[in-house]
C-alpha cells in the first residue's frame, strides 16, 4: 500500500509539472490554447491507459502468486530475462543493443535526478516516451484527419495488444518514439480529409482491442511472452 501511495504521489507530481509546462508554452504563444488542451488530454489518456495495464499486471500477479511487494520493482512481477536485465542496467548501465542502451543510460541519468530512484526513473521514462509518442501521432493525425478522428485513432493505438510493452522500461518505448517521430515528419504526405469512425465501429474495435490487450497482459505477467 505504501509503495502504491508513493507511486501515485510521484506520478501526480510529474503530471502537474507536465501540465504547468504546457500552460507556460500556451501563455508565451508557442502553442495555441486548443492544441495545448488537446495535447494535455492525449497525454493524460496515455498515462491512464498505461497505469491500467500496470495495475492489471500487478493484480493478476498478486492474485496468483501473492508476491507483489513493490509497484516500483517491475522485474519482480513481470517475469522474463529481459526485464531482470533492464532493472540492473538502470542501476549500472552498460552497452547492449542501441535502443536498450539508450534507454538504460537515459533512465540512469533520470534516476540520478530523482535522488537514486533508478527503477522509478525507468517507469517514468517509459511512460514519458510513450506519452510523447502518442502526442506526436495525435498532432500529425489532427492536421490530416481532424481532431475527433485523431483522438479515436490514438486511443485505439494505445489499446492495441502490443502497446502494453510501450509502458515497460526497455527498448519498446524508445522504438515507439522513433516510429512516432518518423510518422510526424512523413505524415505530411497523408492527404487531408476529415475522417471519423462511426461510433458503433469505434466501440466494437475498442472492445476487441481491450480483450486482446487483456490477454497479452496476462501472458506477459505469467511469463508466456516477453
Amino acid at each position, binding site marked *: 500500500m*505504501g509503495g502504491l501511495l*508513493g507511486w501515485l*504521489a*510521484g*506520478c501526480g507530481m510529474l503530471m502537474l509539472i507536465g501540465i*504547468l509546462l504546457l500552460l507556460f508554452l500556451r*501563455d508565451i504563444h508557442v502553442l495555441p490554447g486548443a492544441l495545448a488542451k488537446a495535447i494535455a488530454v492525449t497525454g493524460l489518456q496515455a498515462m491512464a491507459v498505461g497505469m491500467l495495464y500496470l495495475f492489471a499486471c500487478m493484480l493478476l500477479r498478486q492474485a496468483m502468486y501473492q508476491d507483489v511487494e513493490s509497484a516500483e520493482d517491475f522485474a519482480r512481477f513481470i517475469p522474463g530475462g529481459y526485464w531482470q536485465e533492464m532493472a540492473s542496467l538502470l542501476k549500472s548501465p552498460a552497452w547492449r543493443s542501441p535502443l536498450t542502451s539508450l534507454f538504460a543510460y537515459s533512465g540512469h541519468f533520470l534516476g540520478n535526478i530523482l*535522488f537514486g*530512484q533508478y527503477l*522509478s526513473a525507468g517507469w517514468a521514462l517509459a511512460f514519458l516516451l510513450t506519452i510523447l509518442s502518442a502526442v506526436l501521432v495525435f498532432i500529425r493525425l489532427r492536421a490530416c484527419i481532424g481532431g475527433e478522428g485523431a483522438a479515436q485513432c490514438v486511443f485505439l493505438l494505445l489499446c492495441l495488444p502490443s502497446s502494453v510493452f510501450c509502458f515497460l522500461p526497455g527498448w519498446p518505448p524508445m522504438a515507439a518514439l522513433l516510429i512516432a517521430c518518423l510518422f510526424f515528419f512523413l505524415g505530411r504526405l497523408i492527404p487531408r480529409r476529415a475522417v471519423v469512425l462511426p461510433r458503433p465501429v469505434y466501440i466494437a474495435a475498442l472492445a476487441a482491442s481491450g480483450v486482446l490487450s487483456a490477454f497479452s497482459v496476462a501472458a506477459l505477467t505469467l511469463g508466456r511472452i516477453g
Partner: protein
Amino acid sequence: MKNRLKKRWPVWLGIILAAWGIHDLVLVLSSVFVQGSLSLPGIVDLIGQRLTEPGDAVRYLDIAKNGYTAVGENAINLVFYPLYPYLIRFLSLIVPNRALSGLIISRVSFAGAAVLLYEWILYERKCTADAWLGVMLLSLYPFSVFVLGVYSESLFLVLTIGCLFLLRKKRFVCAGIAGFLAALCRVQGMLLILPAAYEMLSLRLGDEKRRFSPKDLSVLLIPAGFGVYLLINYALHGNPFQFLQYEAGEPWYQTTHWISRNIALQYSLSRQHQGLSWIIYLPQIALYFLALCTMLLGVKEKTPVSVILYGGAYLGFTFLSGWMISGGRYMLSCVPIYLILSSVKSASARRLLVLAFALTNVVYSLLFYMSYAIM
C-alpha cells in the same frame, strides 16, 4: 492608499478580529480541557508552555538572545533562518520580554496575512464571499495553531502572500523586496523566484509583449535573500552550506529523496508507530494528496499559472524531505491552496470544506495543547 484605508478599515478590522478570534477561542476552550477550569493565569500558563517553549520556539528565542554561534551545542541553530529571530531581538529593545515580542510579531503578521489574503482573493475573483472563504480556510487550517506561537509561520505567510499579490499586480520591485524578506525567513521563500520569473516572462513574451525594463531585475532580490543566509553560513563556518550538514545530523537527520519514496516511508512509519500515525504520518500523506488535487483544481478553475507553479513547487520541495514530521505545519504556508479552494462554486462543497477544516483544526489544536507530538 489613504482613501483605500478609509473605505476598507471596517472590513479589515473584521477580518483581523475573525482570524484572531478563531484561534483565541480554540486556545480558551483548550485551556478548559487541559487545566479543567477557565482562568486567565491558566491561559497564560498554557501559552507559555505550548507556544513559547517547545520545539523551534526555544531555538528562535536563543538566536534572538545570543545570535548565531560557531561553537557549542547551539551552533546548530544556524539551520533557522535569521529574519524572525532578529525581528524579535529588535522588538525586544522596546518590549522587554523576548517571548512576548515573538508572540506580538506572530499575531501582527497573522493579521497582516489574513488581510492581504482577503485583498488578493478579491483582486483575483472580484467576489467578497470567495475572499472571506479564503480567509476562513487559512484561519481554520488543521495545523494553524502555530500562527500565534513563537514560530516563523505567520511572518512567512504575510511575506509570501504579499509577494505573490504584488507579482500579480506586476509591481516587481515591491514583490522583489517581499520575496527577499521571505527568503530570509524560510528556505521555501526562495521558491518565489519561480512565479516571479513566470510573471515576468509572460509579460514579455505573452499577449502584452512589454519591453524589458531594469525594474525587472528586482526579482533577483529573491535569491539574494537566500544568498544573504549563505553568507551568514560562510561568515561563521567558512562553508556557505554548513546548514545542510547540521540538518543531516542530530536531532533532524534530514535527507532528500524523491517524493514517492518519502510518501512510502511515511506510510511505513505510520504502521510501525501506531500512536503517531493519525497525528503525524497519515495527515502528512493526506495533505500531500489534497494539495496536489487542489493544484489540479486550480488548473481547471483557471487560477493564474504562476500561483499554481508556486504551489506545486512548494508542495514538491516540502515533500522531498525524507524524515519529515512537521509536514502539517509546513503546508500551512502553501498559500495557493486557500486561493484555489476559495474558487469552489458549490455552496454545499464550501460548507463541507469549512466544516472539515474547523473540525480538524479543533482536534489537532487540542492535541497540540495537550502536549501530543504535533510539531
